[in-house]
Every structure is written in structure tokens, then in C-alpha cells.
């Protein structure tokens, strides 16, 4: 397999996870994350993001395939991998019954931070994460943003070579998300750590990641830098919404000069073109001449939203679907019930 598998890297080779012998949560995923890179795994709920992270962080066994993190084989040496990585989970996992300081001291001890460095490192992180004033308050009294920053501090107290962030900003307001990412970027700059992040916030992936993989139904459907992915769209997207949805206007729209392609979806027509602003009047004019009434016209510059739509064939919705784990649990329950009736 191509790519680096040394220090600071993350390599997955045909990584597969099948639950209950039926649900293929992750299906032959391969990628290489270079040292120091911020790599985004983008996809809706149930796409296989969290399952991939769980396999890479030695929390879940793979059904097949191979993975190395920081140059260490995850399946053969899970304990060594745990020593080298940091994780911020999508749920709060710091101890609410301990103070912020106690949480960090505990994490430092478990990760083997030298005893002489613990106090200064904990103090430094509390200050950086802006929770120093609340350092001796129980974590369960923290606001959502403070708790998230504490999670990040707990996950990085040992200065790991690779940091895994699984939906780290879930539930945070935009200001909280911006603050969280500021700290991640600072840590990355100072320690040169590789960051592997799963998210379903498109603007986060666009702004923070060096490269992105779009995962859907357990498969990587596209990958590249945000710019590369957007360039693959080939230009702007004009969305035409006719009043009458039963009449196919795609052939008409294709006759307009400058149109690269037309795709019908849910009664709308996505017109791909190089210069949308100039093309909109021509498209409206063509519809008017053919007596096609329009309910709306919109122009979008290429965005990851559009990239997702292009590669998965559907709109990106943050609350979409159930997770692969939930699906496996539901399948298990159905199987148990069927088994009980037999």
C-alpha cells in the first residue's frame, strides 16, 4: 500500500467491520494520513465514522483489514497504540464527580506523564483551555463549552503523536466550536501532532482539514483537499425549481450555452456551469421562452455541501439516519425476538 506508515501517520488498509455478520458498518476503507496532517472523515450518522475511529484507537476489533497508527500495528499491539494516541470522544467522558484539575491529574497518571511534569502540564492546559478559574470545581458543573475544552485537555495531556477527535464539537454553538478548533490548531502547531477528525459539520471540515474523505454507507466515496473536492464539481451550481414538477425541463436546460451538466433531483434541476452568475439570466430566459414557470432559482458556489451531494446523490443532513452501532443493536434485538418465537 502506498504512503507512509511511520511516526505520526495513520494508515488503514481495507479496514472492514461487520456487526452481527450482517451490518457492514465499515466496508474496505483504505487511506493514509501523513504526519502533522489534519484529516477529516466526513459523513452523516451511520456512515461508519465512529466505527472507523473505534477500530483505529484499539477500542473495537476489525472484522478484516489492517491498520497502523503512529507506526504501530493496531490489531497486534493495541496497548502500545493507546499509549501513543489521544482521543476526544463525541460524548462527555471526563468524570463529572472529579474537578477539572483532578480529571487532568488522573489522565496524566494513566498515560505515564513524568510525575515531575504533571503539575506544570495540568496548570498549563487548564489556563490554555480557559478553565483555570474553574479548575477546582466539579466537572459536572461546567458549561458545555468548558466541558468540551476539558475533554480536549484530557485527550492531549500526554502530548500524543496522533489525536483522534470523534465529532468533538457535537452540540456546541458556533462560538464554542470556533474556540475548540482554535485550541486544536494551537496544539497542532506546537506539538506537530497529526489530527484525525470525524465530523458532520461541513464548514468545520472545509476550514480545518488539510484533506477530507467522504464516507457513506461504510465506503469512502471521495477524498482530497477541500479545494480539490470542490474543483471536481467543475464549477458553480444553479438550482432551478419549476412550478410544475411533472414536466422534464432537463433537455431544455442542456441547450443553454455554458451548461456543463443537468441533474434532476426531488423536482429540482441542478445545473453545473463554469460561471453561474452570468448563466442565470440565460437559464431563466430559456425557461420563459418555453413557458416553464419557475418557483425559484438559486446559485451556489462550490461547497462541501455540494460535494457531498455530488458523490452520495443526496443532501447532507446532520440528523440523518441512525448510527451503525444502533443499527446493529436493533438488528440484534429483532434477531433475539425472532429466535425467541422459534
Amino acid at each position: 500500500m502506498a504512503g507512509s506508515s511511520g511516526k505520526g501517520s495513520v494508515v488503514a488498509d481495507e479496514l472492514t467491520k461487520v456487526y452481527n455478520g450482517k451490518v457492514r458498518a465499515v466496508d474496505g476503507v483504505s487511506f493514509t494520513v501523513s504526519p502533522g496532517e489534519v484529516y477529516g472523515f466526513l459523513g452523516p450518522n451511520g456512515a461508519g465514522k465512529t466505527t472507523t475511529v473505534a477500530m483505529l484507537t484499539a477500542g473495537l476489533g476489525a472484522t478484516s483489514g489492517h491498520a497502523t497508527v503512529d507506526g504501530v500495528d493496531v490489531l497486534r499491539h493495541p496497548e502500545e497504540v493507546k499509549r501513543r494516541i489521544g482521543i476526544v470522544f463525541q460524548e462527555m467522558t471526563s468524570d463529572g464527580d472529579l474537578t477539572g484539575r483532578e480529571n487532568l491529574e488522573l489522565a496524566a497518571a494513566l498515560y505515564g506523564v513524568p510525575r515531575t511534569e504533571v503539575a506544570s502540564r495540568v496548570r498549563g492546559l487548564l489556563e490554555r483551555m480557559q478553565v483555570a478559574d474553574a479548575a477546582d470545581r466539579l466537572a459536572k458543573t461546567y458549561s458545555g463549552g468548558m466541558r468540551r475544552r476539558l475533554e480536549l485537555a484530557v485527550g492531549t495531556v500526554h502530548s500524543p503523536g496522533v489525536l483522534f477527535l470523534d465529532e468533538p464539537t457535537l452540540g456546541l454553538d458556533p462560538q464554542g466550536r470556533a474556540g475548540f478548533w482554535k485550541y486544536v490548531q494551537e496544539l497542532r502547531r506546537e506539538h506537530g501532532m497529526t489530527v484525525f477528525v470525524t465530523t458532520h459539520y461541513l464548514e468545520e471540515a472545509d476550514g480545518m482539514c488539510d484533506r477530507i474523505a467522504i464516507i457513506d454507507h461504510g465506503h469512502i466515496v471521495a477524498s482530497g483537499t477541500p479545494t480539490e473536492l470542490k474543483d471536481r464539481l467543475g464549477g458553480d451550481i444553479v438550482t432551478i425549481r419549476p412550478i410544475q414538477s411533472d414536466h422534464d425541463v432537463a433537455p431544455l436546460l442542456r441547450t443553454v450555452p455554458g451548461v456543463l451538466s443537468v441533474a434532476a433531483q426531488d423536482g429540482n434541476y441542478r445545473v453545473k456551469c463554469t460561471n453561474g452568475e452570468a448563466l442565470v439570466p440565460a437559464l431563466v430566459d430559456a425557461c420563459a421562452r418555453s413557458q416553464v414557470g419557475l418557483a425559484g432559482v438559486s446559485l451556489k458556489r462550490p461547497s462541501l455541501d455540494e460535494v457531498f451531494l455530488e458523490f452520495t446523490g443526496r443532501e447532507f443532513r446532520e440528523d440523518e439516519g441512525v448510527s451503525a452501532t444502533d443499527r446493529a443493536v436493533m438488528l440484534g434485538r429483532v434477531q433475539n425476538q425472532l429466535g425467541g418465537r422459534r
Partner: protein
Amino acid sequence: MIRELGALTRRELLRLARNPQAIMTSLLLPILYLLLFGQAFDLGAAVSPQALLFLVRGAPTYFSYFAAGMAGFVAVTATLFIGANVIFDRLFGVLKRTSSTPAGASAIFGSRLLAGIIQPVGLAFLVLGLAVALGKLGLAGLVVTASLSVVGVGEIILAVLILSVMFASLFLAIGFTIEQPQTYFAAVNAINLPVLLTSAALFPWGLMPAWFRNVASFNPITMAVNVIRENLFSGATAYYPYDASVYLLGLTAWAAAIIVIAILLARRALAPKA
């Protein structure tokens, strides 16, 4: 391993110190037994003093016999919630966080066990003290007729400690295996009461039918309370077939067997999911 064990034990003790209600709850059941069951059941009024000595194996009163039994039973009530904490830590993500660190299953299990067995020893002596105090208030109370030696106190501490290790391991094993709190409490109740009722903690030994005595002899609570009673009551050793050290050995065998099973279950629960 040692540092991880120390850090995780500190975490458990901090949580315990911040939750005095949990300690009170552990005390509630033995206290209620002392105040209600112990006071109401006046066996001495029904039989001669000589017969009573036989029935309660050398204890001066039934209440004294019973109070020593309660001091042993504290090892069960004070460790009841230890497995529930595992379940809640799993539900609140704390166990996921701990499992994601290099801390091994032995440190995670061991820290909970260590923190869990400190409380019952203190509570056992609190129960004994309270039982003595009840006597000073004019109620039925514990009468210690033996002169307690350092070795005797040591044996009592050891008995409660080993019994606590056994029950803490058992409840931890259940906590690591079961995911729902309701199921945990149902399982624990299914163990708690039968173990108490098949022991010699409550019932006068002399009133038990022979087959029941055979069952009770192998009960770990019986072994622990035998050690306590042999040390608290003068001449009680004459009513027991074995010396306290033999009962301590029996208890250790019980505890060792349960610990091995519990560690295996904890390791399985904390290993990467297949």
C-alpha cells in the same frame, strides 16, 4: 501498573468521600436490623441461660450473637453498590475514557476493589460500637465477654476484609457483565438475601436443623462471623469445631476463587469489542 492503580484508587476514594449518602445507605440496613430485629427477638426469655449458651454458641445474649453477625453482614451491604458504579461509569462514558488509556483491566478492577474494601471494615466496627451503645441506653446491647487481644482485633479486621474482598469482587463481576442498572439490582438482590438467610449471621446455630447447619457451614458469611464471635465471647471457642484461623483460610479460598472469576470477566468486558 502501580501508578495507574494508585491514580484510579484515588479517584474512587474521592468519589466516595463526596458521597456520604452512599456510606449512610450501607449502614442503614444493619442499623435497622439492630434496632428492629435484634430488639424484638428476645431468645433469652424463652430458654434457660445454659440452653441459650448452646443455641448462640457461647454468646452471652442472642443480641450479642446477632450484633456480631451484623458486623459481618456489613461486608455485603457496604459493597452492594460497587458494581452499580461500574454500570453508571459505563453509561456516563467514564469507563470508555479509562479503557481508552493504557491502564490495564487489572488496574481498573483492582482500584475499585481496593477502594471498595476500605469502607466495610470501618463500618463493621461502627456497627459493633453502636450495638454496645444500645446496651448503655437500656436496650438490648452487645456484651463483649472476652478480653480482646491485638491478634483478636486483627482476626476480626481480616475476616471482614476478606469477606469484603469476596463480595466486592462478586458485585464487580456482575457490574462488568451486566449493562442495565435494573438488571444489576435484581441480580444483587437475588444473591444478597439467600446468602444472608443461609448463613449463621441471624439465626441461632442451635436451632438450625442439621442439614441447614451443613449448608451454613460453607457460607462465607458464617465463616467470617465465626471468627468475630470466637474473638468477642469468652469460652465461645468451645462451641466451634475449628479455630478462627481455619475459618480465615476457608474465607480466603472463597475470596480467591471469586477474584479469579471476577478478573476474567472484567478483562473480557474491557477488551476491545469483537
